[in-house]
């Protein structure tokens, strides 16, 4: 504050004298400043000298001339100039600090030190003196001396956190990360609310491995000394997470929660962060701990939802293999399945009716039942209960879209269309676009191709919207095949079967198209669909045969590159035959050097070869 006052005073003084200048002085000053900017320091200094002569009290003139002398290395002149000004401003500590700096620049380090010491001895309790002198030292690369000066100032003023940020900055800049963290710990002890700021400052060097290790070790020592100091332990937990050590972080949050009597809320925040960062195993363990130990916590319902979400995600990653148990989790938790998450969601709906966690859980039930379990009626029931609930907010619109998809999967196009009509008028544009596109798709599935084209038109004309590409793609497909309506209708019927996950039936239909209309323009698309169905039916080798046929026997097909790409991809991801995948990707490059997939193919070959790029 005192420093701020001094600076304000200086600026105000400078402005007042500027106002007092006559036009001639202003012109001269501008000319000198231009010369200085152009590197003509000597010329500029002559004009500055004239200006100082005409008004020796003007701070702007004085500072400009001092700066010019320093640049010209005219240290003696600069010293005389500052001495003259000091004569009528004896208490100006800035001038004293500057003067010491000038002596130092001239090579008179003894005189510099004497001046600085004298200034301090005169007013040893004034922090600004130490700050100004340390600044002069820093500018002369005397970092150790600047550190000593700040430390001396701290002792003299009796304030244990004086210059804490300056010292921390200097110490981290000189790679003394331990020392820097000790400074920040000092600040943290005196102002725990500054934790966020301190984290951001420490983050400037925790990107370096040595910085992060030193910081964690230093804070760990402090935690050992004061195990119940919550801000310090929070800092340590954050550093552990920065090092990817979530297990250790969880351990710290257990202590924090207990010491702070947070009733699970600290653990909850930690679990939320872990989940956001994709550490579902740790998130699940933290949520579970809240459920087991803090039944009355206000966050309890949210923790239950968080736990169910983590279980869902873990089962998405692998629903069969055991998941390594987190510390504190029971072994039973290591065997999880998607059914388990649904059961957890259902319990939340039952226990907390008409609450946010219940709405979220119901939506997840619908989503899991549709996308993972393909329980269409169960999904529709779940989504319907959300759609009826105006308090569910954005989930209503999402449930409408997904309900419509489920109805299509049930081949109930009328219901699918009706559901979309209930889209709230206030839904965001992007959501309404998705509804419009689904409407066009429903018309397409109903073989109402002209209607579909009309519905797609507004979407295709708004090229800045996300759905424009999908809309264009469908529009192009209909337009290309509209002339052969029989084939197109057969294709659409087969596609609906795909949506219904009736893979075998769909495959028969697509193969029938290929038999009855081998010359149809959509024959290659039908083959791509067949290949995907073979994959879905667990027959990847059949898929490869179909894809091979597209590449080798359909020279005019526009999906040949896609077929070859998919061929290699199946070798890579399903057959896990890396050498073959590499060969097929290489073949792709040979045959389709200008394809849109080329860059991706190159990347995949590099990755499969283990190239380090």
């Amino acid at each position, binding site marked *: 504050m005192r420093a701020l006052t001094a600076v304000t005073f200086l600026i105000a003084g400078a402005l007042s004298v500027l106002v007092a200048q006559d036009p001639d002085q202003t012109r001269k000053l501008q000319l000198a400043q231009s010369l200085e*900017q*152009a*590197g003509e*320091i000597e010329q500029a200094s002559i004009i500055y000298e004239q200006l100082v002569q005409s008004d020796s009290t003007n701070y702007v003139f004085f500072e400009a001339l001092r700066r010019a002398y*320093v*640049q*010209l*290395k005219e240290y003696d002149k600069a010293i005389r100039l500052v001495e003259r000004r000091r004569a009528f401003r004896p208490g100006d500590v800035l001038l004293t600090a500057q003067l010491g700096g000038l002596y*130092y*620049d*001239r*090579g008179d380090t003894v005189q510099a030190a004497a001046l600085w010491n004298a200034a301090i001895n005169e007013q040893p309790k004034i922090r600004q003196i130490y700050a100004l002198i340390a600044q002069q030292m*820093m*500018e*002369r*690369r005397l*970092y150790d001396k600047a550190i000593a000066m700040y430390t001396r100032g701290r002792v003299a003023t009796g304030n244990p956190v004086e210059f804490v940020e300056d010292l921390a*900055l*200097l110490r*981290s*800049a*000189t*790679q003394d990360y331990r020392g820097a963290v000790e400074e920040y710990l000092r600040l943290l002890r005196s102002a725990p609310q500054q934790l966020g700021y301190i984290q951001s400052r420490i983050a*400037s060097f925790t990107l*370096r491995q040595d910085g992060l290790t030193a910081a964690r070790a230093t804070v760990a020592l402090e935690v050992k000394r004061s195990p119940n100091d919550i801000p310090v332990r929070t800092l340590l937990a954050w550093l552990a997470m920065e090092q990817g050590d979530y297990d250790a972080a969880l351990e710290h949050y257990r202590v924090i929660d207990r010491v702070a009597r947070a009733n699970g809320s600290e653990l909850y925040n930690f679990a939320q962060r872990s989940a956001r960062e994709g550490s579902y195993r740790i998130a699940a363990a933290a949520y579970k701990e809240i459920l087991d130990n803090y039944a009355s916590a206000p966050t309890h319902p949210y923790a239950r939802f968080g736990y169910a979400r983590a279980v869902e995600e873990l089962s998405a990653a692998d629903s069969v293999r055991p998941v390594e148990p987190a510390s504190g989790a029971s072994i039973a938790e290591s065997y999880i399945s998607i059914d388990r998450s649904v059961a957890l969601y259902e319990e939340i709906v039952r226990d907390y009716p008409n609450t946010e966690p219940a709405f979220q859980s119901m939506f997840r039930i619908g989503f899991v039942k549709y996308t993972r379990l393909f329980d269409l009626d169960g999904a529709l029931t779940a989504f319907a209960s959300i759609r009826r609930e105006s308090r569910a907010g954005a989930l209503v619109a999402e449930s409408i879209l997904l309900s419509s998809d489920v109805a299509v999967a049930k081949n109930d196009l009328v219901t699918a269309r009706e559901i979309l009509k209930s889209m709230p008028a206030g839904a965001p544009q992007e959501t309404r676009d998705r509804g419009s596109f689904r409407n066009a798709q429903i018309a397409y599935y109903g073989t109402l191709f002209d209607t579909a084209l009309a519905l797609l038109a507004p979407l295709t004309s708004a090229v800045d919207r996300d759905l424009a590409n999908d809309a264009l793609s469908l529009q192009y497909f209909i337009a290309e095949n509209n002339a052969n309506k029989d084939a197109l209708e057969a294709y659409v019927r087969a596609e609906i079967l795909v949506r219904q996950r009736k893979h075998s039936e769909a495959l028969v239909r697509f193969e029938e198209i290929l038999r009855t209309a081998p010359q149809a323009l959509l024959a290659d698309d039908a083959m791509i669909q067949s290949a995907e169905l073979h994959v879905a039916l667990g027959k990847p080798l059949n898929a490869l045969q179909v894809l091979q046929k597209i590449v080798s026997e359909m020279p005019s097909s526009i999906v040949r590159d896609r077929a070859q790409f998919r061929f290699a991809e199946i070798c890579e991801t399903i057959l896990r035959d890396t050498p073959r995948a590499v060969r097929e990707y*290489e073949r792709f*490059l*040979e045959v389709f*050097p200008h394809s849109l997939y*080329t*860059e991706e193919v*190159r990347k995949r*070959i*590099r990755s499969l070869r283990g190239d380090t*790029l």
Partner: protein
Amino acid sequence: MTKRAMLVAVVFANALVCVQGQTRMLVPMDLSQTDHLKSYGLAYWVLEKNGQVDWLLNYRGGSFLLEYSEVVARECRIRGIAFEPLSAAEAAQVFSNVQREEANTDVVRLEKAPRIAVYVPPDFKPWDDAVTLALEYAEIPYTKVWDEEVLGGKLSDYDWLHLHHEDFTGQYGKFYANFRTAQWYVEQQSMYEREAKRLGYSKVGEEKKAVARAIKDFVGNGGFMFAMCSATDSYDIALAAEGVDICDVMFDGDPPDRSAQARLDFSKAFAFENFKLDMNAYRYEYSDIDIPSSDPPPLRDQTTDFFTLFEFSAKHDPVPTMLTQNHVSIVKGFMGQTTAFKKSLIKRTVVTLAEREGTEEVRYIHGNFGRGTFTWFGGHDPEDYQHAVGDPPTDLSLHKNSPGYRLILNNILFPAAKKKQQKT
């Protein structure tokens, strides 16, 4: 050669056997090339595997002619490099065209992948330096060396050395005026001082000059040195200022020698003479070698800033010809702390490879010292007109055909060339 290396060579040689009637493959380096920069990496890759590369100077932008093999063809496809398979007859025709007496073209055989070292400080980020960016993009392996390795005589393990835009004068890049209190500046200065002390020098400036002299020995003993931006002029200043304190008090703790300018020994410098030092710590400039001066920053329209590559006789001056191979002869300019070299200050023994026509600005120079050579290129990043401290890295996958970056990569292959008797 170890048994393992021999085995690899035999396997690779076997793979070179043509299978489809092609005996050679041409990697064109004219406008038909899809990735010029990776093409250099491919040539290096072939050399590394004991293959041979013929560099067709001035033929379709300085193309490469390789033995055809499925292995190499596949590698071209994976790296996105355009190539043309040639039959024996077509290859003979190309050779015959290139070696016609009246054509300014020639063939240089590249035989051995040079061992590459890059002089960079620890914690350096590749995007701070165009050469390492180019090496990494072209997939050419290199080793990082710094003061300890250079002073410890480790340069003899390498054929080619690139100098990062280091300041060899001990003035910390002359960033004092604008960055003296910035954390990175303080950090760098403190790290350099510690390193100098550890290596037995009382001042960073003296240690850097010793490094400069060690590099000079490396060149004298047959090494190839390539430098860009401020590593060029600051290097020569360091050589000329041997035994002279040119650093101000804020750099080394004591004032400079008042007669520093008069005591410079230009005979010790590689490329420049009669230059005037700029010892003002507040100015972002080392001397008057750099043109236009970086302080004040030049106001220049990048849409009109170009420089021209000189054309040399491929048959009589193969070295400068190699260094200037390109698919264009006019290259867009780019700035740096040292952008270009003032023509009047360049020694007469130095060859100018590129200049900004009608001006004093020389962009690209080459010279010999002892048994080795040095090649210096002004400017910082050929695809970032005014690269500044903290600017994001240049993504070279967006500049696959950069003529400026090609000039850098010419330098890497040039030491691989088989020495042949010069005709003049």
